[in-house]
Protein backbone atom coordinates (compact mmCIF):
# COMPACT_ATOMS: atom_id res chain seq x y z
CA UNK A 1 0.00 0.00 0.00
CA UNK A 2 1.42 3.38 -0.98
CA UNK A 3 2.13 5.99 1.65
CA UNK A 4 -0.11 9.05 1.93
CA UNK A 5 1.71 12.37 1.83
CA UNK A 6 0.94 15.71 3.44
CA UNK A 7 2.75 19.04 3.44
CA UNK A 8 5.53 19.00 6.03
CA UNK A 9 6.24 15.27 5.79
CA UNK A 10 9.96 14.64 5.91
CA UNK A 11 12.35 12.07 4.45
CA UNK A 12 15.77 11.55 5.99
CA UNK A 13 18.71 9.79 4.37
CA UNK A 14 21.41 7.85 6.18
CA UNK A 15 24.22 10.01 7.57
CA UNK A 16 27.36 9.61 5.50
CA UNK A 17 31.00 10.45 6.14
CA UNK A 18 32.98 10.20 2.91
CA UNK A 19 36.62 9.25 3.43
CA UNK A 20 39.47 10.44 1.26
CA UNK A 21 40.06 6.83 0.24
CA UNK A 22 36.49 6.62 -1.04
CA UNK A 23 37.08 9.79 -3.05
CA UNK A 24 40.22 8.26 -4.56
CA UNK A 25 38.26 5.12 -5.52
CA UNK A 26 35.53 7.26 -7.08
CA UNK A 27 38.01 9.23 -9.15
CA UNK A 28 39.91 6.11 -10.25
CA UNK A 29 36.64 4.46 -11.28
CA UNK A 30 35.59 7.57 -13.20
CA UNK A 31 38.90 7.77 -15.02
CA UNK A 32 38.89 4.07 -15.86
CA UNK A 33 35.34 4.05 -17.22
CA UNK A 34 34.86 7.50 -18.70
CA UNK A 35 38.33 8.64 -19.75
CA UNK A 36 38.28 6.42 -22.88
CA UNK A 37 34.94 8.05 -23.78
CA UNK A 38 35.97 11.59 -22.98
CA UNK A 39 39.52 11.75 -24.32
CA UNK A 40 40.84 11.07 -27.80
CA UNK A 41 42.80 7.80 -28.04
CA UNK A 42 46.42 8.24 -27.07
CA UNK A 43 45.97 11.49 -25.14
CA UNK A 44 44.33 10.04 -22.04
CA UNK A 45 46.50 11.04 -19.09
CA UNK A 46 47.62 8.58 -16.45
CA UNK A 47 44.79 7.81 -14.03
CA UNK A 48 47.14 7.81 -11.07
CA UNK A 49 48.74 11.16 -11.92
CA UNK A 50 45.42 12.89 -12.51
CA UNK A 51 43.85 11.46 -9.38
CA UNK A 52 46.87 12.32 -7.24
CA UNK A 53 46.71 15.97 -8.32
CA UNK A 54 42.99 16.52 -7.94
CA UNK A 55 41.31 18.79 -5.37
CA UNK A 56 38.90 15.87 -4.97
CA UNK A 57 41.60 13.58 -3.59
CA UNK A 58 44.60 15.63 -2.48
CA UNK A 59 44.07 17.55 0.78
CA UNK A 60 47.18 19.67 0.30
CA UNK A 61 46.17 20.84 -3.14
CA UNK A 62 42.64 21.55 -1.92
CA UNK A 63 43.99 23.69 0.94
CA UNK A 64 46.02 25.73 -1.55
CA UNK A 65 42.66 26.83 -2.96
CA UNK A 66 41.38 27.81 0.49
CA UNK A 67 39.35 24.65 1.03
CA UNK A 68 39.30 22.75 4.32
CA UNK A 69 40.16 19.39 2.77
CA UNK A 70 39.71 17.29 -0.37
CA UNK A 71 36.39 18.27 -1.94
CA UNK A 72 33.59 15.77 -2.39
CA UNK A 73 32.43 16.17 -6.02
CA UNK A 74 29.07 17.90 -6.24
CA UNK A 75 27.76 15.16 -8.45
CA UNK A 76 28.38 12.65 -5.65
CA UNK A 77 26.22 14.77 -3.35
CA UNK A 78 23.57 14.82 -6.08
CA UNK A 79 23.82 11.03 -6.29
CA UNK A 80 23.12 10.68 -2.54
CA UNK A 81 20.05 12.92 -2.77
CA UNK A 82 18.75 10.95 -5.73
CA UNK A 83 19.38 7.73 -3.80
CA UNK A 84 17.35 9.06 -0.86
CA UNK A 85 14.32 9.38 -3.16
CA UNK A 86 15.03 6.03 -4.83
CA UNK A 87 15.07 4.31 -1.43
CA UNK A 88 11.88 6.07 -0.31
CA UNK A 89 9.81 5.99 -3.50
CA UNK A 90 11.17 3.01 -5.41
CA UNK A 91 11.79 2.58 -9.13
CA UNK A 92 9.22 5.26 -10.03
CA UNK A 93 11.83 7.80 -8.91
CA UNK A 94 14.25 6.67 -11.65
CA UNK A 95 11.43 6.74 -14.19
CA UNK A 96 9.80 10.07 -13.46
CA UNK A 97 11.62 12.01 -10.75
CA UNK A 98 12.98 15.52 -11.24
CA UNK A 99 15.80 16.79 -9.05
CA UNK A 100 17.31 20.26 -9.27
CA UNK A 101 20.04 21.36 -6.88
CA UNK A 102 22.43 24.23 -6.23
CA UNK A 103 25.79 23.58 -4.60
CA UNK A 104 25.94 26.24 -1.91
CA UNK A 105 29.31 25.48 -0.31
CA UNK A 106 31.86 22.70 -0.73
CA UNK A 107 31.64 19.44 1.20
CA UNK A 108 35.01 17.95 2.12
CA UNK A 109 36.26 14.51 3.08
CA UNK A 110 35.25 13.34 6.56
CA UNK A 111 32.33 15.80 6.65
CA UNK A 112 29.25 14.09 8.04
CA UNK A 113 26.52 14.64 5.46
CA UNK A 114 22.90 14.86 6.60
CA UNK A 115 20.32 14.91 3.83
CA UNK A 116 16.60 15.45 4.09
CA UNK A 117 13.58 16.43 2.03
CA UNK A 118 10.36 18.04 3.22
CA UNK A 119 7.09 17.99 1.31
CA UNK A 120 6.32 21.53 0.18
CA UNK A 121 3.26 20.90 -1.97
CA UNK A 122 0.82 18.07 -2.66
CA UNK A 123 -1.39 18.37 -5.73
CA UNK A 124 -4.02 15.75 -6.56
CA UNK A 125 -5.07 15.63 -10.21
CA UNK A 126 -6.51 13.01 -12.54
CA UNK A 127 -5.97 10.17 -10.10
CA UNK A 128 -2.35 11.06 -9.42
CA UNK A 129 -0.52 12.97 -6.71
CA UNK A 130 2.24 15.41 -7.63
CA UNK A 131 4.67 16.00 -4.78
CA UNK A 132 7.13 18.85 -4.54
CA UNK A 133 9.94 18.60 -1.98
CA UNK A 134 12.43 21.09 -0.60
CA UNK A 135 15.79 19.35 -0.36
CA UNK A 136 18.70 20.22 1.88
CA UNK A 137 22.08 18.75 2.75
CA UNK A 138 24.13 20.03 5.70
CA UNK A 139 27.38 18.96 7.34
CA UNK A 140 28.19 18.27 11.00
CA UNK A 141 28.59 22.04 11.58
CA UNK A 142 25.07 22.55 10.22
CA UNK A 143 26.54 24.42 7.26
CA UNK A 144 24.30 24.21 4.23
CA UNK A 145 26.02 22.40 1.39
CA UNK A 146 23.21 21.80 -1.09
CA UNK A 147 19.72 23.17 -1.55
CA UNK A 148 17.19 22.19 -4.13
CA UNK A 149 13.79 20.92 -5.09
CA UNK A 150 12.44 17.59 -6.25
CA UNK A 151 9.21 16.63 -7.97
CA UNK A 152 7.50 13.33 -8.58
CA UNK A 153 4.06 12.29 -9.77
CA UNK A 154 2.74 9.16 -8.06
CA UNK A 155 -0.21 7.02 -9.13
Amino acid at each position, binding site marked *: MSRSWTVGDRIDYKEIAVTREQLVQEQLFGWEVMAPVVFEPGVCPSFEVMVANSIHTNSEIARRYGLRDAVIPG*VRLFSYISDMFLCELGVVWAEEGILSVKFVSPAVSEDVLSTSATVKEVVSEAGTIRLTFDVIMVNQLNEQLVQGTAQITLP
Partner: protein
Amino acid sequence: MGKLNLSEAKIGDTFPPVSYIVTSEIAKRYAEVNGVSQPVSASSTYVSPGMLAHDIVWIASKYFDITGVLLAGLELEFEGLMSDSGTVNVCESKIEDISFHGGDQYTIASFVITNEDGKAICRSKITCVSKTAKAKEV
Protein backbone atom coordinates in the same frame (compact mmCIF):
# COMPACT_ATOMS: atom_id res chain seq x y z
CA MET B 1 37.10 19.15 -32.43
CA GLY B 2 38.91 21.05 -29.66
CA LYS B 3 37.43 21.78 -26.28
CA LEU B 4 35.36 24.92 -25.96
CA ASN B 5 36.69 27.57 -23.62
CA LEU B 6 33.60 28.81 -21.80
CA SER B 7 34.79 32.41 -22.18
CA GLU B 8 34.14 31.93 -25.91
CA ALA B 9 30.86 30.05 -25.55
CA LYS B 10 27.69 31.39 -27.17
CA ILE B 11 24.09 30.54 -26.46
CA GLY B 12 23.04 27.89 -28.97
CA ASP B 13 26.49 26.32 -29.38
CA THR B 14 25.99 22.59 -29.93
CA PHE B 15 28.19 19.53 -29.44
CA PRO B 16 28.42 16.21 -31.24
CA PRO B 17 26.69 13.16 -29.73
CA VAL B 18 28.62 10.58 -27.73
CA SER B 19 27.76 6.90 -27.23
CA TYR B 20 29.18 4.28 -24.90
CA ILE B 21 28.13 1.06 -23.21
CA VAL B 22 27.43 0.58 -19.54
CA THR B 23 27.95 -3.08 -18.67
CA SER B 24 26.40 -4.80 -15.68
CA GLU B 25 29.83 -4.87 -14.07
CA ILE B 26 30.31 -1.11 -14.50
CA ALA B 27 26.84 -0.33 -13.12
CA LYS B 28 27.45 -2.58 -10.12
CA ARG B 29 30.86 -1.08 -9.41
CA TYR B 30 29.49 2.46 -9.69
CA ALA B 31 26.91 1.71 -6.99
CA GLU B 32 29.54 0.10 -4.75
CA VAL B 33 32.13 2.85 -5.16
CA ASN B 34 29.59 5.62 -4.52
CA GLY B 35 27.58 3.80 -1.85
CA VAL B 36 24.22 4.10 -3.62
CA SER B 37 21.50 1.70 -4.76
CA GLN B 38 20.68 0.35 -8.17
CA PRO B 39 16.98 0.32 -9.08
CA VAL B 40 15.71 -3.24 -9.29
CA SER B 41 12.48 -4.49 -10.82
CA ALA B 42 11.22 -8.07 -10.84
CA SER B 43 13.31 -9.08 -13.82
CA SER B 44 16.09 -6.58 -14.34
CA THR B 45 18.63 -4.33 -12.71
CA TYR B 46 19.08 -0.80 -13.93
CA VAL B 47 21.72 1.89 -13.83
CA SER B 48 21.69 4.10 -10.75
CA PRO B 49 20.28 7.55 -11.57
CA GLY B 50 23.41 8.95 -9.91
CA MET B 51 25.57 7.28 -12.53
CA LEU B 52 23.80 9.19 -15.28
CA ALA B 53 24.58 12.41 -13.40
CA HIS B 54 28.24 11.47 -13.06
CA ASP B 55 28.45 10.57 -16.74
CA ILE B 56 26.93 13.87 -17.86
CA VAL B 57 29.52 15.81 -15.90
CA TRP B 58 32.26 13.70 -17.47
CA ILE B 59 30.85 14.30 -20.94
CA ALA B 60 30.78 18.04 -20.22
CA SER B 61 34.52 17.79 -19.60
CA LYS B 62 34.85 16.35 -23.11
CA TYR B 63 33.15 19.40 -24.60
CA PHE B 64 34.45 22.19 -22.34
CA ASP B 65 37.80 23.14 -20.92
CA ILE B 66 36.90 22.72 -17.25
CA THR B 67 40.10 24.19 -15.85
CA GLY B 68 39.02 26.55 -13.06
CA VAL B 69 35.35 25.79 -13.69
CA LEU B 70 33.10 24.87 -10.75
CA LEU B 71 29.85 22.92 -10.83
CA ALA B 72 27.26 25.30 -9.37
CA GLY B 73 24.05 23.42 -10.09
CA LEU B 74 22.67 20.24 -11.57
CA GLU B 75 19.19 19.25 -12.70
CA LEU B 76 18.07 15.85 -13.94
CA GLU B 77 14.62 14.94 -15.17
CA PHE B 78 14.28 11.18 -15.36
CA GLU B 79 12.03 9.76 -18.05
CA GLY B 80 12.80 6.05 -17.97
CA LEU B 81 15.05 3.32 -16.71
CA MET B 82 18.44 2.65 -18.26
CA SER B 83 19.26 -1.03 -18.56
CA ASP B 84 22.56 -1.92 -16.92
CA SER B 85 23.90 -3.60 -20.03
CA GLY B 86 22.88 -1.09 -22.66
CA THR B 87 24.16 1.67 -24.87
CA VAL B 88 24.05 5.20 -23.51
CA ASN B 89 23.73 8.04 -26.02
CA VAL B 90 24.36 11.62 -24.94
CA CYS B 91 22.86 13.92 -27.54
CA GLU B 92 21.22 17.31 -28.13
CA SER B 93 24.01 18.87 -26.08
CA LYS B 94 24.05 22.64 -26.24
CA ILE B 95 24.68 25.90 -24.40
CA GLU B 96 21.31 27.06 -23.08
CA ASP B 97 22.18 30.28 -21.29
CA ILE B 98 25.07 32.52 -20.26
CA SER B 99 24.82 35.17 -17.58
CA PHE B 100 27.16 37.22 -15.43
CA HIS B 101 26.94 37.87 -11.69
CA GLY B 102 29.52 39.27 -9.30
CA GLY B 103 32.44 38.86 -11.67
CA ASP B 104 31.57 35.26 -12.51
CA GLN B 105 30.20 33.74 -15.69
CA TYR B 106 27.33 31.26 -15.25
CA THR B 107 26.96 28.89 -18.17
CA ILE B 108 24.03 26.49 -18.43
CA ALA B 109 24.40 23.51 -20.75
CA SER B 110 21.72 20.95 -21.51
CA PHE B 111 22.05 17.27 -22.43
CA VAL B 112 19.66 14.47 -23.35
CA ILE B 113 20.47 10.84 -22.59
CA THR B 114 18.78 8.21 -24.71
CA ASN B 115 18.94 4.43 -24.58
CA GLU B 116 19.81 2.07 -27.40
CA ASP B 117 16.27 2.39 -28.79
CA GLY B 118 16.65 6.15 -28.99
CA LYS B 119 14.15 6.73 -26.18
CA ALA B 120 14.98 9.67 -23.92
CA ILE B 121 15.55 8.47 -20.38
CA CYS B 122 17.00 11.62 -18.85
CA ARG B 123 17.17 15.33 -19.61
CA SER B 124 19.79 17.31 -17.77
CA LYS B 125 21.07 20.82 -17.24
CA ILE B 126 24.34 21.68 -15.59
CA THR B 127 25.34 25.13 -14.38
CA CYS B 128 29.04 25.95 -14.46
CA VAL B 129 30.62 29.00 -12.89
CA SER B 130 33.93 30.41 -14.05
CA LYS B 131 36.02 33.57 -13.92
CA THR B 132 36.20 35.09 -17.38
CA ALA B 133 37.45 38.40 -18.73
CA LYS B 134 33.94 39.28 -19.92
CA ALA B 135 32.48 38.55 -16.48
CA LYS B 136 34.93 41.02 -14.94
CA GLU B 137 33.79 43.73 -17.35
CA VAL B 138 30.08 43.28 -16.61
